[in-house]
Structure formats: C-alpha cells, structure tokens
C-alpha cells in the first residue's frame, strides 16, 4: 500500500438520469423514467468498486453516464478532479483515452465486419498512439496480454468463442492504456467455466497495470470475489456501500439482507436451516417510484417515516454507508 492508494479517482455526486416518456403525435413529455435518481459514490485509485442490483435498477445506466454515452440529467461526475459532465463531446477525447469499457455481450460489442486485430487497434488509431509496424507490434502485445495468440488477429469476430471475444474486448479496452475501466457485466453472458478465466484475467491485469475498476454485475459471489468495496443499488438509488467483507458479514440495509439471503450456501445442512428473506411484491416502476424510501413498500421494518422522507446515505462508521432510517 502506497500513499496513492487512497487517492480518489472517480467521484460521482447526486447523479440523476431521467429518460423522458414521450406520448402522442406531438411527442409530449408525459413523465420520466427515473433510471438513476440521485446516486453518489467514489472509487479510489487501484481499487475495484462492485455495483450490484437486480435488472433494471439502473446500474448499467450509471456506468453509461460515467462513460458519457448518456448525458446525465443532473449531478457531477469528477474524474481525476475534473467534472466530465460539462465537457462538450468534441473535447472529451483526452478523458476517453483514460477510461475503458468492457460490455456484457461479447457478440454485439465487436463489429462483425472488422478483424480482431483491427478492433483492438481502433483506440490506438483514434488517439494516434501508434502506426505502421509499431501498431502491429502493440496489437500483438495486447493480444498476448489477454491470453490470445497474435496470429489470430486476422480473423473476424464470428470465428471466436464467447470467451475469446470477451478477451478481444478487454484488449480493446486496455489499448489506450486507461487508468480506469468500467466492466459492465463482463462475464454474465459467458459459460461458468469461462467466467472464472475472465475474472482471473481481469484481476491479473489490474495487478499488473494498476487499473481501477467499476465492476457492474448481478452475481453476488463474483462481485464479492473481485471487489474491494461494494455498492448495492435498488430502483435508481444506492442503498448501501461498504467493503465487500463487511457487506457479507454485517449487511445493514433490509434490501441487502434479502439479496444476500438469496445466495445459496454450498452446504446442505446450513442451506436447510438458514433463514431466507422472501421479498413481497414486485419492483415498482421507475416511472412512478414510491415516495420516501424506494424500498418501503417491500420492507419488513418500514415505518411512517420511511414513506415520507428519503433516507440519506449516512456513515455508520468504518466507511460503511447505508441509506436506511432503521439500520
């Protein structure tokens, strides 16, 4: 651990991303999908922050806002101290070089009409980092780094397996030597046997290159394995952030507890006797989220206060943050 480890690389404050609902001939705005509704978190240099939550809770949207694929409705995203939400698209290039991304679907994230080598070379060309022989050399190096044979550079994506494709995606994400990589469910589309390989590769690369990850996933076991800290999202808001060990040993938010109780324990005796929290009802629509705490309609311990006020994300000591009045 050196002094740099504590330095904050990414700081997101009160991020909101509303998608308008347009109706009728005149495309009138009749409401908003509040995909992300006031999210704040930070990521320290060289650490992995896991972002978990069920489908539709807005975790991918958070990632895409940080990547500036979406223009957030409100809030600030500070990368290396500068707010990147206000920078116009044309001037974003230096920031783009610093942030890489790995997407979920290894099939749609590679251009089917490009060779693997050309895909990996793209960021290098865009940022004028290499050309000619230098470029080929650099691409071969990236291929080896992610465990692919550089001789496969001339093949097109459909000649590769899912795991290999994801490796190509990782090589591309790292081509411009970014310091920060957003992994948006990088393994959930892969076979279980391949998942472990990719996770190990990501960890190895982090160690070697000093990378910082924002790791978005819904597989709790994987997230716990790879993350230093974990943020749990529910319906557009973060309900709890703490170190991954603390989260598993001492979850405070009722939603986190329910989520963890859904993870099966690989021991039949424990599995038989352990208490499972089954949540009632469905996740409300992000177009009409409940007032107060978003979780209160399904919460076992909710009281009147929860239906009226939004619980702030408060520090309960030791860097454990929770957004619950009762915890």
């Amino acid at each position: 651990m050196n002094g740099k480890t504590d330095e904050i690389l990414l700081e997101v404050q009160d991020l909101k991303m509303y998608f308008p609902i347009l109706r009728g001939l005149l495309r009138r705005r009749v409401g908003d999908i509040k995909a992300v509704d006031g999210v704040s978190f930070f990521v320290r240099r060289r650490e992995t922050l896991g972002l978990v939550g069920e489908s539709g809770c807005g975790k991918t949207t958070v990632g895409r806002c940080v990547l500036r694929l979406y223009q957030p409705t409100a809030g600030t995203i500070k990368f290396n101290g500068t707010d990147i939400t206000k920078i116009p698209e044309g001037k974003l290039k230096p920031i783009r070089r610093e942030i890489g991304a790995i997407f979920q679907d290894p099939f749609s994230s590679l251009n089917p009409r490009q060779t693997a080598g050309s895909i990996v070379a793209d960021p290098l060309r865009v940022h004028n980092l290499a050309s000619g022989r230098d470029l080929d050399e650099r691409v071969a190096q990236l291929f080896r780094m992610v465990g692919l044979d550089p001789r496969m550079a001339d093949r097109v994506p459909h000649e590769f397996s899912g795991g290999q494709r994801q490796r190509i995606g990782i090589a591309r994400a790292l081509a411009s030597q970014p310091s920060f990589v957003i992994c948006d469910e990088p393994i959930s589309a892969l076979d279980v046997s391949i998942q472990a390989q990719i996770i190990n590769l990501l960890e190895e690369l982090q160690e070697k290159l000093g990378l910082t990850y924002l790791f978005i996933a819904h597989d709790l076991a994987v997230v716990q394995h790879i993350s230093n800290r974990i943020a749990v999202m529910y319906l557009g808001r973060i309900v709890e952030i703490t170190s991954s060990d603390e989260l598993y040993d001492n979850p405070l938010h009722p939603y986190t507890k329910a989520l963890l109780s859904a993870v099966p324990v690989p021991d039949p005796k424990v599995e038989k006797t352990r208490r499972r929290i089954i949540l009632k009802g469905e996740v409300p629509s992000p177009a009409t989220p409940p007032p107060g705490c978003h979780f209160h309609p399904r919460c076992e311990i909710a009281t009147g206060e929860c239906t009226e006020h939004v619980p702030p994300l408060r520090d309960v000591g030791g860097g454990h943050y929770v957004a619950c009045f009762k915890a």
Partner: protein
Amino acid sequence: MGTIPSTEDKARKKYIGAIRRVRLVRNLTLIIPATIMALMVICAIFADLSWMGMPNGGLAPHNPTKQVVKDRYLPPAFMEGGKSQYLLGTDKLGRDILSRVIHGARVSLSVSLLAIFITAAVGTVLGILSGYVGGRIDALLMRIVDMALSFPGLLLAMLLAVAIGPGFWTVVFALSVLGWAGYARMIRGEALRIRESDFVAQARVNGASPLRIMFRHIFPNVVNSLIVIMTLQVGMMILAESALSYLGIGITAPTPSWGSMVSDGRSELDRAWWISTFPGICIGLVVLSGNFLGDWIRDKLDPRLRQV
C-alpha cells in the same frame, strides 16, 4: 444380407431423386439468369472492338447505323424471304436488327449501371448521415425523401429530358434524380439499428469521431443490404431507360437503344413485327434475369430484406 434391393432402398433412391430434381430446378433459376446477364454484358463490351483499336472486329455482324436501302424490311433469316446475313432481319432503313440489339445492350447496361452507382452512393451517404446523426438533419432529409418517393419518376424524367435535351447523360441524370431516395430510406433504417449496437457505443467510448464511426463501423455493416438493393435495381433501371427511349426523350437516334427500337417498330408491327419484338424480348429477359439474380443475392446476403 440379401443382394435384392429392398423396398427401403427403392424408397431412398426415389427420395434422393426427388431432392436432386428440386435442386436442379433451384439451380436453374440461378444458372439461366446468370447466363443471360453474362451474355448481355459480353455483348455490351464486345459489340465492337473499336475501343481496342480494331474497328472491324466485334460481335455485331454489321455496323448498327449503316443503312442499306435495298435490304429494307427484310424478315429474320429463318423466315421466307430472309437473308442469311441478317439473322434477325432489318428495319425500315435497312439496318441489321441483330447488330442494333447487341449495341443496344451497351447503352442500356451502361445507363442503368451508372444510374445505380450514382443513386446508391448518394442514398448511402445521406441515409447513414440521417440515421446516425438523427435529430433535425434526419427529419429534414426524410421529408425530402418522402417528397422524392411520392413524385412520379417518369414525369420528372420527361420534364428534365425536355428541359436539358435528350441524350445519354440526361437519361442518367433523370434516372438518378429521384432514385437515391429509396436507398436513403433503407440505409437510414439500417444505420438506426446499428447505431444502437454495443460496438458503436464502444467506438464512442474509445473517442472515435462521428465521421469515423459512420465510415468504419456503420458503412461496412450496411454493404450487404446495399448490394442487394443495387442488384434488384438493375431490372428497374433498364426498364426505365427503355421507357424514356421509347418515348423519344432518352437515347437519341441513330444510337441504338432497346427502348427506341421498340418505339421505331411500333407502327409497323403488322407487317414487320421483328423490328420491335427482338429488342422487346431483350428488355424482358434482362429485367427478369436481373430480378432473379437480385433475389438470389438477397437470399444469400441478407434474407431480412425479403419484403423489399
């Protein structure tokens, strides 16, 4: 194991025979049109060899514009009164029909290919721009496309031909001036779909400029659809060119063109049917072959386009 073929074997042979027959028919719908097309292209290129510096060679037995007064209205060689040197007969000026048909292929094919390339190029650029950039540019371009598609094409072509005066380039221009709209609409849809794919998002994350994304990521992915529409357009363009020439506002005399030949023989159909019929058959064959080939290429490259 007996040596006498069992009923099962017979059934299998019958089945294999049936499959072979189906395959043959299916292949014939490719082989015949492809042969016709190839023949027409060869005719167009080698009608005469003056472009190779050999004014006397070529596939056409006669000069297509040479008039032989004593040989007017000769029927085809296989008919009574026909002469063997005029296989398909002669027209009212004593010009050889076969030679004119062969030379007509050159005009028809070059006009339609030129028009197809121009419309495809313009339509693709505008379609990708419209689909990827979106917003006001998209709205504006698509309204122009609406107008172009709702305009009666032949009428505008006639107007243009009258305004600029008939000729080769007028026909090319007239056929191109509205034809791009169909491409633009199709390609826009494709671009819209591709724009949302993850690899385009990745390109943006990498910092690629919009121009780079359109050129490197969207264009290569619309090429298949583009080739399909282009081949399907061959027949339509040849037909349109013939229509213009038939109306006398296309290729001007004495340059032979199928459309104008049909038009020439129209008034003499009762006594010299061959003047109109042979170029007419050529138009029919090429259009049909073009459509068959287009269908085949579409099935190979992009079966999603079946409704086009």
